[in-house]
């Protein structure tokens, strides 16, 4: 039966099991939106900026393990998606981005709202398509979803000219894809797995570094089995948080630039790293030349191009983490490693790394810990980027699988609000806490309208220190406290919330923190808390840029006693 391009798209989305689309429309995608309203099974959430649509789809995909979908019009609409697509690409999030394009006869003629968006998204997508006829739409959508969710998942972009949306073609949804150049490997090579097992069985001080691959492959049980069977301590990358319960005796927290001192020490002292679904990002390894100097490395990853990209690897295993661990666990011997674990526990005792000072002032660390206490860890934590993100990563002990959503690779400030929105839509029955910085919050603040209009019940905690805090911290440590352009003039966030009809409170004293958190949780719907915190609080431990994990600074350098106001050119 003949259908229009727009109908074919909608039918195909239904076939792919899409339930939610985050988007905002414009001229070049009007035919699709006109048709979309005839498909009530496709819930459309109207965002207020395309970046918000992409972040929401990204977070939705992360928490549901389904493909997230975002939509925008041509030109500026499509261009506004770019940051969100790049973010999804860096964190391997399965997103299908659909954009309208000017009609075929206008392409290449610099038409109104024309931009070469497939040219722009080429290096930040797993694959992209510019559709040339309605007849190829069904096959393309099928391929796009398949590519996005399989192998190392990632964003795929489909650009659809306006006249293709109205063109008629025969609709047959293909049963399978035909992609001769795309054959992801799921099963690890048995010989490699045996080799890895031998190394594990003979190691004296093995260490597991668990990354987001464990979460994407939902291999929590397999990871836990490996760790428990051979008594191997587990540390995490930032995005690997919530892959292994932090309250487990074998959990030693996050590694990296703001990792726990004892976790970084473990990396530098281990004789065997078993890295699972992680990619040796520079924020996790610090300088690679001095990373894990005593260790052999087993690298389990689904993407062969990650093997040996950043660090030398002794035993690579390409495959899906769940499958690989399933086989590996059978070949790994029961072990105790009691001496090694005793050493790590001693280090943890000597270098606790986490400290919440007593006092009146509102400390970010205290807020995060109280959110944990109030929720008992039964919450999804979505963060922005910078200090708020690191405090959340450090002070919220993630005990629930898959409960942390953050922009890791791209480090996108402004991710938090739309991502929290997408996460809540994906898991409506769960408590979603959005930990925002006052800087990043204002980068996507417009999504408060979406949250209000759709009554998306996210709890927003603004860690308001009046600075672009992480940059300020670098200026403090490495630029002799010259606070160039990091001090922020902020609006009254309570008035902002009020304008969006979202209830809100402000917290200025430590003894108000807990009651504010409960107030937010007890309210049925979105709620905002403006936590006015100690402005110059720093994130520690910290590995200074260009140093190795062995040079982890545990506590803030004693500040020079100076009554002089920090130099700043920004408004204060």
């Amino acid at each position: 039966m003949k259908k229009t391009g727009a109908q074919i798209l909608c039918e195909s989305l239904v076939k792919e099991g899409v339930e939610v689309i985050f988007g905002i429309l414009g001229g070049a995608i009007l035919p699709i939106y006109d048709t979309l309203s005839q498909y009530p099974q496709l819930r459309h959430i109207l965002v207020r900026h395309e970046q918000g649509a992409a972040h929401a789809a990204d977070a939705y995909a992360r928490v549901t393990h389904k493909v997230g979908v975002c939509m925008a019009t041509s030109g500026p609409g499509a261009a506004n998606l770019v940051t969100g697509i790049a973010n999804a690409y860096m964190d391997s999030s399965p997103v299908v981005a659909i954009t309208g394009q000017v009609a075929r006869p206008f392409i290449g003629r610099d038409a109104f709202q024309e931009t070469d968006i497939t040219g722009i998204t080429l290096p930040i997508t797993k694959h992209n398509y510019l559709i040339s006829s309605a007849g190829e739409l069904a096959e393309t959508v099928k391929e796009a979803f398949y590519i996005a969710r399989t192998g190392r998942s990632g964003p795929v972009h489909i650009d659809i000219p306006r006249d293709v949306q109205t063109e008629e073609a025969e609709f047959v949804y293909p049963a399978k894809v035909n992609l001769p150049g795309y054959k992801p490997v799921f099963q690890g090579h048995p010989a490699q797995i045996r080799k890895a097992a031998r190394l594990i069985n003979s190691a004296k001080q093995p260490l597991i570094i668990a990354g987001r691959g464990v979460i994407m492959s939902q291999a929590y049980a397999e990871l836990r089995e490996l760790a428990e069977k051979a008594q191997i301590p587990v540390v995490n990358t930032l995005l690997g948080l919530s892959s292994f319960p932090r309250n487990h005796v074998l959990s030693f927290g996050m590694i990296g630039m703001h990792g726990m001192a004892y976790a970084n020490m473990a990396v530098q002292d281990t004789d065997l790293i078993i890295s699972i679904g992680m990619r040796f990002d520079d924020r996790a390894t610090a300088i690679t030349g001095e990373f894990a100097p005593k260790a052999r490395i087993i690298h389990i990853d689904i993407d062969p191009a990650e093997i040996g990209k950043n660090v030398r690897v002794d035993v690579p295993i390409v495959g899906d983490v769940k499958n690989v661990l399933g086989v590996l666990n059978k070949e790994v011997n029961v072990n105790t490693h009691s001496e090694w674990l005793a050493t790590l526990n001693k280090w943890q005792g000597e270098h606790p790394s986490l400290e919440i000072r007593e006092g009146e002032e509102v400390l970010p660390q205290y807020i995060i810990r109280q959110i944990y206490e109030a929720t008992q860890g039964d919450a999804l934590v979505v963060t922005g980027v910078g200090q708020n993100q690191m405090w959340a990563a450090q002070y919220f002990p993630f005990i629930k699988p898959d409960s942390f959503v953050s922009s890791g690779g791209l480090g996108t400030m402004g991710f938090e609000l739309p991502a929290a929105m997408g996460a809540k839509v994906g898991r409506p029955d769960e408590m979603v806490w959005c930990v925002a910085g006052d800087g990043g919050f204002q980068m996507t603040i417009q999504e408060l309208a979406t949250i209000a209009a759709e009554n998306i019940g996210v709890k927003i905690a603004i860690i308001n220190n009046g600075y672009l805090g992480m940059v300020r911290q670098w200026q403090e440590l490495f630029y002799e406290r010259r606070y160039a352009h990091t001090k922020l003039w902020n609006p009254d966030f309570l008035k902002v919330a009020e304008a969006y009809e979202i209830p809100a409170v402000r917290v200025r004293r430590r003894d108000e923190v807990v009651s504010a958190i409960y107030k937010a949780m007890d309210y049925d719907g979105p709620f905002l808390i403006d936590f006015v915190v100690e402005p110059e609080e720093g994130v520690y431990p910290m590995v200074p840029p260009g140093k190795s994990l062995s040079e982890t600074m545990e506590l803030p350098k004693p500040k020079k006693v100076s009554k002089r106001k920090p130099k700043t050119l920004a408004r204060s």
Partner: protein
Amino acid sequence: MEATKYTISMLVEDKAGVLNRVASLFRRRGFNIQSLAVGGSEQLGLSRMTVVVLADPAQVEQVRKQLDKLINVVKVVDLTNDDMVARELALIKVAATSSTRSEIMQIVDIFRANIVDVGSDSLMVEVTGDEEKVNSLFELLRRFGIKEVVRTGRVALTRGAVATRTDNKKKGG
């Protein structure tokens, strides 16, 4: 690690934008293309690309894996250490007068090259061979005055059994 020349052969889907994807990857990852040649292959819908890259061994392994990740790239083989036949073609327009013409033609003969066009004051030479052969002919003709040159870049195939087929393909990501 010292950079050397590697010859990579690829089978790619014959679709719009594939060359752009390959070129973009080289640019983005900071790999250095020495030459690139594209044309049809023995299989309908697939083209064969031969790329010469200047890289160290670790880099070339990354190049190979990153190229393999491109959806439209069906097969990637590093031919460098294989027993391969590598050729390029050059057209050289060289200045020729009545007094130099016969000498040029002799040189061209020795190189088993061809004169493909004769003008009143120039000759066009077509030469096929490996890079060194083309370079030496070019050097010999230089003293007559070279007006224009065009070179194809390297194309290569392994000797004997076919290596760059689409079967036994393993890739991921």
